[in-house]
């Protein structure tokens, strides 16, 4: 108990200072206290900040099974065992626009499409990508075409150029619901990887319960050292997370998160958003998309993955209710899969795939981007869905129109890429 009292005292002391600093119009107090104050401030007002949630489908998701070109003859020529049937047939796709249909397992998303909150950008990806999962993921998360030596991630650099109210900057501003910080969030700006909110912290043991304690004081007093800042943010995050009671969280509006890892991640994202702790960028991931064999069609392994994703996103949407107006969810995957099914009723590593945008601010109910078609001469290297939207233009639109990044700063987020609003597909207007 002794330790946690010390922590509390530091918190309160710093918090009081911060209030004073803000009252005086000066925003240069330590981040720890800024975040604490911000949390206090925010929980009262209900927020108003914009939140970006990125969902990475690791393993190369088959966009042609997510958003099915059922109007295309070539689709059924190249795929037999794994093809999805037209909307009219039993177990068929859910029609989107007379040419494309959504996988039936994504039924919850179909409602959002109808309500204009879901937009689809098809044939999207990295035009320079390799067919190696890890290289392609790395490049996409770095936000480059092929510069393997760019060590920071696009989300981290985006945070660096987001207009920010210094006083509201939170130690929980950027969070990944994973064990390791993904490349997307690595870089100069502070970002935290926390797979389990309840488990984050300095775990007591011989320092007694309550965490931190002596450590906190060590870093508090290490002024002038770069480590001081890391300590401040680390303990600031712990303090904020202490206000978030993960175990007793009750989703609202009857939202029911699947018990999957993705469900757990999104449930925690919703909880953080509602707790008003200053979250602006969240990263979640889902695996199992590398469907080389027995991919299935209306049912099967791919359908199971899609159903999980659909129900998870629907639960987030329902749980957040009106707050979805502040939230934009993007889905992404390192590349798509071969158009032709392979000898094992699966698909191999391909090129373009479908990216989704979901949120209150989305101008949805539309499939955006040029559709290259599936005829042989249109396929990339004679086998894969060609890419007509550079994934960086898809991300850049969210940077500018959702997070408020100045178009002139896009070259900092996507170095070497001419990103400009002209190239946006318009899912945000």
């Amino acid at each position: 108990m002794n330790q946690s009292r010390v922590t509390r005292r530091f918190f309160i002391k710093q918090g009081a200072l911060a209030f004073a600093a803000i009252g005086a119009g000066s925003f240069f107090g330590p981040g720890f206290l800024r975040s604490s104050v911000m949390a206090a401030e925010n929980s009262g007002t209900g927020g108003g900040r914009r939140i970006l949630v990125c969902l990475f489908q690791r393993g190369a998701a088959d966009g042609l099974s997510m958003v099915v070109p059922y109007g295309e003859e070539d689709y059924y020529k190249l795929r037999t065992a794994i093809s999805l049937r037209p909307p009219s047939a039993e177990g068929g796709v859910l029609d989107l626009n007379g040419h494309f249909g959504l996988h039936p397992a994504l039924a919850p998303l179909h409602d959002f499409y109808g309500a204009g909150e879901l937009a689809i950008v098809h044939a999207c990806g990295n035009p320079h990508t390799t067919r190696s999962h890890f290289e392609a993921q790395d490049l996409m998360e770095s936000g480059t075409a092929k510069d393997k030596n760019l060590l920071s991630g696009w989300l981290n650099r985006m945070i660096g150029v987001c207009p920010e109210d210094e006083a509201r900057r939170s130690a929980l501003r950027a969070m990944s619901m994973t064990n390791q910080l993904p490349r997307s969030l690595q870089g100069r700006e502070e970002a935290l990887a926390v797979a389990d909110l309840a488990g984050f912290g300095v775990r007591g043991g011989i320092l007694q319960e309550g965490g931190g304690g002596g450590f906190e004081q060590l870093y508090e007093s290490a002024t002038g050292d770069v480590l001081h800042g890391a300590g401040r943010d680390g303990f600031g995050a712990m303090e904020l997370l202490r206000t978030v009671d993960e175990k007793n969280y009750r989703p609202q509006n009857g939202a029911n998160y699947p018990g999957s890892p993705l469900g757990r991640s999104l449930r925690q994202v919703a909880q953080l958003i509602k707790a008003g702790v200053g979250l602006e960028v969240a990263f979640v991931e889902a695996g199992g998309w590398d469907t080389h064999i027995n991919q299935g069609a209306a049912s099967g392994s791919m359908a199971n993955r899609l159903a999980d994703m659909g129900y998870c996103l629907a639960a987030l949407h329902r749980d957040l209710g009106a707050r979805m107006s502040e939230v934009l969810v993007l889905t992404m995957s390192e590349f798509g899969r071969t158009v032709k099914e392979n000898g094992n009723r699966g698909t191999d590593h391909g090129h373009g795939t479908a990216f989704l945008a979901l949120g209150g601010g989305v101008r949805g109910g539309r499939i955006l981007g040029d559709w290259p078609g599936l005829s042989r001469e249109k396929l990339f290297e004679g086998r894969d869905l060609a890419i007509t939207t550079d994934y960086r233009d898809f991300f850049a639109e969210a940077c500018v129109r959702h997070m408020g990044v100045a178009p002139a700063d896009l070259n900092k987020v996507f170095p070497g890429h001419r990103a400009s609003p002209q190239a946006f597909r318009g899912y945000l207007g």
Partner: protein
Amino acid sequence: MLILLLVGAALHFDCTGAESSGEVLRARHVLNRLAYGPRPGEISAVVAMGVEKWMRGQLQPDKIENPELEGRLAELTSLTSNQSDLLGAFQDQMQRRQRERGEDEDQESLSRMDELAPDEGRFQVTLALGELQRAKLLRAVYSERQLEEVLVDFWFNHFNVDARKQSVIAMVGHHENEVIRPHVFGKFRDLLGATARSGAMLIYLDNARSSAEMHPAMQGRGNEEVQRPGRGLNENYARELMELHTLGVKGGYSQKDVMEVARAFTGWTVERSTGEFVFRSRLHDRGMKRVLGRRIREGGGMEDGEQVLDLLAAHPATARRIATKLCQRFVSDEPPNDLVERVAAAFKKSKGDLRVTYEALFFDPEFFNPVHYDAKIKTPFEFAASALRAAGIDLKSEAAMSVWRGRMPLRAMEAAATLGRGGERLQKRVGSKTVLLHILEMGMPLYAWAAPTGYPEESTHWVSAGALVARLNFALALAGGELADVGEAPVLQSGISPQEDGHDSLEAAENNILGRRASEATRQVLQKEAGAGREGEESQVDQNRLLALLLGSPEFQRR
């Protein structure tokens, strides 16, 4: 049971006040830079021997006996398995997977432990990677040839490969121990030549699949089918060879040079079943090349690449780049320019003799300029290794870990966790984290860094809130006996009880763990904590708490 001489060793210090003597600080500095940090009593041992003599000894590692390390490495049997056996196992596994699960052309999913069955053949490759990681840790903690280990780490990082790419996992051990290690005290040109032939490097930077572009006359006649995707010139290795391995990004080469160098290396590839280097002349572009203004005559073969390596190794930009990187590792993130120039000059004058280059750096007066003391922030690996050394920890062999009864060897599970799968399951199985899992959590997957740059030398990369929290948890686990591969709290000698004489024991503890007195701010916190035990609590707990705080202190994150 292990006895940590928290107090005893401090008696050797002749520092009675707050200031340690210059020689003590110099000894501490070299142990932080040319080694993975001081062990208990080691600073005084180096002082007694003479700092310079100790350094000269480290520069001649062959003369240093290393029995403890050799004993500890004996458990890791796959360290001695050869590359072609591992490649064979890797390919068997791939074929089995293709039969059972369908094609995976990039051969990258080996790491998924949930797909690995418990028969030996199936985790042989993952186990080899796990034992390589373990060996790296054991060497850093227990090798007497500390400088050699620091240099192997440095040069591996300079010539980085990533175990997650294709068959690199089966060749990464060879890359470290047969390609890098034999040359770290040799000539740079030999090291460069060895890495250019390394199977791991040829796969990692794609030169293995680079071949002469099809002759224009052959194109447009339906021959494109022959030229399968992935065939043709691949400039990946050529670019990194100049940008990272030699000249540096501003080294004065052009995109045209990159293409020309790539052409020179066409045909440098690897025998897929053995990992051995092979030159295939039918893949080689025999045309004339021009590299950095130098003409390479047409009709050449493998010697084209050798000529390029000669040219690059002798280039002044290379001397400067290598000197800069060495100074960043051994001196500070932004080393003084004139020091870099002196080291580069030694490199040039000695024609890339690395031992001579190191001597120029280590015996330069600037090396011991106190402004550089503690200027570097430890990487997670350096932090973990130095903490284990400082606390005199005896890491248990897998055989001695009674808690471990898994189907899969512990080291294979650790490797799988590094490759991205199964870390939680491993922790659940073992009950707490191993040192390797902690290092992973601090943000450093060993042998699995994607970028050809290697881990950044800049300290700021390692400073973040999440990583710091992970460091504090490691410090707590170590001091609290919660490391899976230690299993018990270090037992501290309680000669002086802190309740009776808190200050003296504090001073001893600081000197033993930090190698010097802590800052005033840190000491105040320590003083309070040293006596913070609840009534009736063993003073042992106070000692362990003190150890955790010292290992987690800002001071201990630096070297």
